[in-house]
């Protein structure tokens, strides 16, 4: 928990450009399933576009996956790799992308 708070404090203390870069870097690996910058590459994609989704919605869903409150085929296992500060950074970055 201490680490989480520290990570959150560190992330929040970064200047805006660095925060954006941190969010971008955390989100970039997700593109293998969710598409570059959160825009699905496949017209019949079973995944909803993350780009431009409300920030709170993304963060809430990630926490629900992580905490086992929303069933999933894969996201319950992946979300467990991210702390609250990282989830907030990912959510903020995707929310700021054009749809």
């Amino acid at each position: 928990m201490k680490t989480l708070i520290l990570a959150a404090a560190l992330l929040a203390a970064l200047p805006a450009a660095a925060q954006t870069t941190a969010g971008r870097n955390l989100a970039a690996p997700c593109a293998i399933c969710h598409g570059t910058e959160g825009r699905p590459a496949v017209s019949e994609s079973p995944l909803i576009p993350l780009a431009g989704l409300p920030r709170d919605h993304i963060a809430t869903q990630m926490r629900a996956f992580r905490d086992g409150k929303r069933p999933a085929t894969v996201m319950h296992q992946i979300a467990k790799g991210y702390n609250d500060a990282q989830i907030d950074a990912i959510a903020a970055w995707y929310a700021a992308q054009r749809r």
Partner: protein
Amino acid sequence: MNKFERRDFLKLGAAAAALAAAGCAGTSYKARVVVVGGGFGGATAAKYLRLWDPAIEVLLVERANVFTSCPISNLVLGGFAKMDDIRQGYDGLRRHGVQLVNDEVTAVDAAKKTVRLERGGDLSYDRLIVSPGIDFNFGEIQGYEPAMQSGRVLHAWKAGSQTIDLRRQLEQMRDGGVYVLSIPLAPYRCPPGPYERASVIAEYFKRSKPRSKVLVLDANPDVTSKAGLFKAAWKDLYPGILEYRGANKAIAVDAATMTVKLEVEDVKGDVLNVVPPHRAGDVAMKSGLITTNNRWCDVDWRSMESKAAPGVHVLGDATLSAPAMPKSASMANNHAKIAAAAIVELLGGRTPEPLQILNTCYSFVSQKEAIRVSSVHAWDDKERTLKAVPGSGGISAARTEAEGTFAWNWARTIWADSLG
């Protein structure tokens, strides 16, 4: 200027002229990155460098005109996908401003920061990315190279002409024949790949030539990835068709008698698919980037920079894998993002921050059903490597058609994320 240098100077002039003709003249860039190899790692790195800093000039050196994907190539072998499904051109990267150089790198001079091209002289760089994929240690299996050259023993472990040839052999095999798949000791490209291949070929036999057999000879003591899920699928779907033998290492092949020699016995087959042990691709060897066991390239996982050559970043299957990190397309694509982010920072005079990355690999166990493994990898400052985040990752609960749908989505999406 001696004769050798003059010739190189002229070649470099020709390469520069070709780039100018490609519409790049007059653009001023702050730095040039050369990327060697247009697979999942190299293509992704080229694209993301342009996305994240358009002031960087990016040249991608690739010998092939089209990309051919290993993921989904097993479905081609099973007859459930076509070669066209796994191939695409490089126009997507051109749209991002990546300059394609259709050539092969023969040497790297990390001190002078140049790469030598087989056809077109030298290219200078500020940062170099090498994403060489794998090549094979054929010598570890006696008789392999002549057997492969005769066309009677194939690996098909790089998607392309051998994929087509192996599919043809499977189609031509008599009903009642034996397809032998020999798997090398880990680490090798795509840990679950051989078991997926055995599964989808067993499905093909079950439908089209039901008296035939799939015989898996694994040098490893047991299935190296998603073992429980694969074994359950084999028991339920392919009883009497698929036989798995662990700790069965191939030491020789004989094309004349269609025999795979193991340490304790000889095994005959009608189609011999023997996958030799791997190492980092030839270009890594020629460039002096191999650091470990004469096989793999060790890197700084914060930047993918080579431990052997400063200013050179190595990606993908060629790397000395971090703990619990598979040699996979997902990982190569993610390595590329580490390198791209680090290079943007370094060229901007800043210190790169480590990235947290993730792996997801789907495997088909039949035409439509798939299983999955995932992991999340974060920088560990004490151990100076990327490590799996405790509590994260895992495998599918069961094989399902829904996972098959996600598998196709993953494939199409990672192709687009890497090349589109």
